[in-house]
């Protein structure tokens, strides 16, 4: 463990030093006592009086006793002291181990870790600044610096466990990597990147899905949604305002990516869940090299892969005439969907230890966006799914029907290889269809009316968290 700016616990440092000093000093005092008696002996011997001669024999005897029996007794006492202190220390170490195990188990079971929304560095806990002297404590856990609390070099006491309310230091948390203030608290992060080429509608999906969760889903399941910080809230409100005025969010340009975060809180469970939605610029998926900084691929919980149906060559051909008319408003993605998908896979393989033949055990939602355009909704949407269920009684659910329709569409559009790649790479995947805007944007300034945008998110949340699954089951 790296050195911390705190006073080491007595039981991990000074205790041993004190024991050594006690033994050493006691030995020196024994020698001093023997020397004192011996000096008295020589003094008495030099006296003429016979009584002093007798006394000198007594003091010589005392000196000898201290040297012989005192040394034996010193050895016995030292051993006893070591054993007594050892027994006390053992109790302390046992308590320390228990506290540490409880802390680790709590963090593990509850899935708590810290992911920096800015630099995406993952750590079990953030670093904490001492509220008094602002020095950085990188590992505020039960350790040799303190089991329940540690004392900073400035004298301030800092809690080291969750049950000692370490969370009260949340305002002083910073990222271990970039040192930025981190307000994620000790929550369970659920990290979901939204993947797709440029103009597939990732930002629209992010905003409309968040709006739908806040306005529709959260009241139904008694969730309390809170933004991580004012930046996230301002961003959301700004985009929402554009949405309500029928304005498409501006193109995401920044290659450096900050997560969009909000808390899901409920009285039914703890800790709070902190949702990380990563909306990278579509250009980032042109090459796996661009995804190097997207370190969240190492700890993400699921994928949302957004597909613009008008980036599929076969569909472009089918809707050529309509696209000539509305293309500017639809803004078809120029990026082949396989390219974005492959960039993501290469990134997983190159940077996050996923082997070429290994299946990813995180849920992947494949979302066909822009179904409001032309007759896409009739082909793969809700209505089409219902009709398929009527035609084929073996299909039990809408999601199964959507899955079948989407697969059929992909095969029909010559994306059989892509489909097989998804099947071979992901243990759990599901097709969804939605429209993040609700209609083809025009200049009418009508509010956008997205539909089915929460479905992929709900599916992933239900797959990655038991509490959320139970809540969503009862909605």
């Amino acid at each position: 463990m790296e050195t911390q700016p705190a006073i080491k616990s007595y039981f991990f440092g000074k205790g041993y030093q004190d024991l050594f000093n006690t033994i050493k000093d006691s030995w020196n005092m024994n020698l001093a006592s023997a020397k004192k008696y011996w000096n008295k002996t020589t003094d008495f011997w030099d006296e003429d009086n016979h009584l002093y001669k007798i006394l000198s024999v007594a003091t010589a005897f005392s000196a000898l006793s201290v040297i012989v029996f005192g040394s034996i007794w010193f050895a016995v006492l030292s051993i006893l002291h070591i054993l007594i202190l050892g027994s006390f220390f053992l109790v302390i170490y046992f308590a320390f181990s228990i506290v540490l195990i409880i802390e680790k188990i709590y963090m593990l079971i509850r899935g708590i870790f810290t992911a920096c929304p800015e630099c995406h560095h993952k750590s079990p806990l953030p670093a904490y600044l001492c509220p008094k002297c602002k020095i950085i404590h990188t590992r505020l856990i039960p350790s040799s610096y303190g089991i329940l609390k540690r004392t900073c070099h400035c004298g301030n006491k800092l809690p080291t466990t969750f049950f000692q309310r370490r969370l009260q230091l949340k305002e002083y948390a910073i990222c271990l990597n970039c040192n930025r203030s981190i307000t994620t608290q000790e929550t369970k992060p659920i990290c979901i990147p939204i993947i797709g080429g440029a103009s597939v509608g990732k930002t629209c999906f992010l905003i409309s899905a968040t709006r739908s969760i806040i306005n529709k889903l959260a009241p139904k399941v008694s969730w309390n949604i809170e933004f991580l910080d004012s930046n996230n809230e301002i961003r959301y409100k700004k985009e929402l305002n554009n949405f309500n005025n029928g304005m498409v969010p501006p193109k995401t340009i920044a290659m450096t990516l900050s997560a969009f975060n909000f808390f899901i809180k409920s009285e039914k469970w703890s800790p709070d869940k902190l949702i990380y939605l990563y909306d990278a610029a579509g250009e980032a998926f042109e090459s796996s090299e661009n995804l190097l900084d997207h370190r969240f691929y190492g700890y993400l919980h699921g994928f949302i892969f957004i597909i613009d149906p008008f980036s599929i060559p076969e569909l472009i051909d089918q809707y050529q005439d309509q696209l000539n008319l509305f293309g500017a408003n639809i803004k078809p993605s120029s990026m082949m969907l396989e390219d974005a998908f492959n960039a993501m896979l290469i990134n997983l393989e190159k940077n996050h230890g996923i082997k070429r033949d290994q299946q990813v055990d995180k849920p992947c939602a494949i979302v066909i966006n822009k179904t409001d355009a032309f007759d896409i909704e009739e082909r793969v949407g809700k209505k089409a799914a219902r009709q398929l269920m009527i035609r084929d009684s073996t299909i039990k659910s809408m999601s199964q029907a959507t899955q079948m329709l989407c697969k059929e569409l992909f095969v029909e559009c010559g994306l059989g290889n892509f489909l097989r790649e998804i099947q071979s790479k992901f243990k759990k995947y599901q097709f969804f269809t939605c429209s993040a805007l609700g209609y083809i944007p025009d200049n009418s300034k009508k509010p956008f009316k997205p539909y089915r945008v929460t479905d992929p998110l709900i599916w992933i949340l239900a797959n990655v968290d038991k509490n959320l699954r139970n809540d969503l089951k009862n909605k």
Partner: protein
Amino acid sequence: MQIFGVIFAIFVAIIVFAVAVWLIQWGVACLVWCYQVALMPFFVYFFPAILLTTVVIGIYLGSYISASNYFISVKKHVNPEGDLKKVLKFYIISILMLILSFIYIAFTIISCLLIYDLLFMFVNHILEYYDTIIFPAFEIHFPFWEK
């Protein structure tokens, strides 16, 4: 007359010689008695007893000085910070004291029992021994004197 004188002188000389021998016998008997009564018991019985007592006193004295030094050292050096300060110091000192008291009590009881038995045997043995001492230790025979 001279012959009588010579005979008398020889007689006197014999008497003097006999008395001298007799006295020497008594002297040796006294020496033997002194050896039996004082010297032999001192070396064989009293000296080990004194030595044992001295060792016991030495053990108590040496251990007392060592223990007091150790406790002074513990009080001086065992100084943890915070709430544990008193607890740990009290714990170490009290447990050490408890174990020491136990050792001392056990040592004292064992020594007492041992000393009591040994002393009992020792006194019996000494008394039996002194009973066997006869003065004079050998038969003193006045020369030329038939019993």
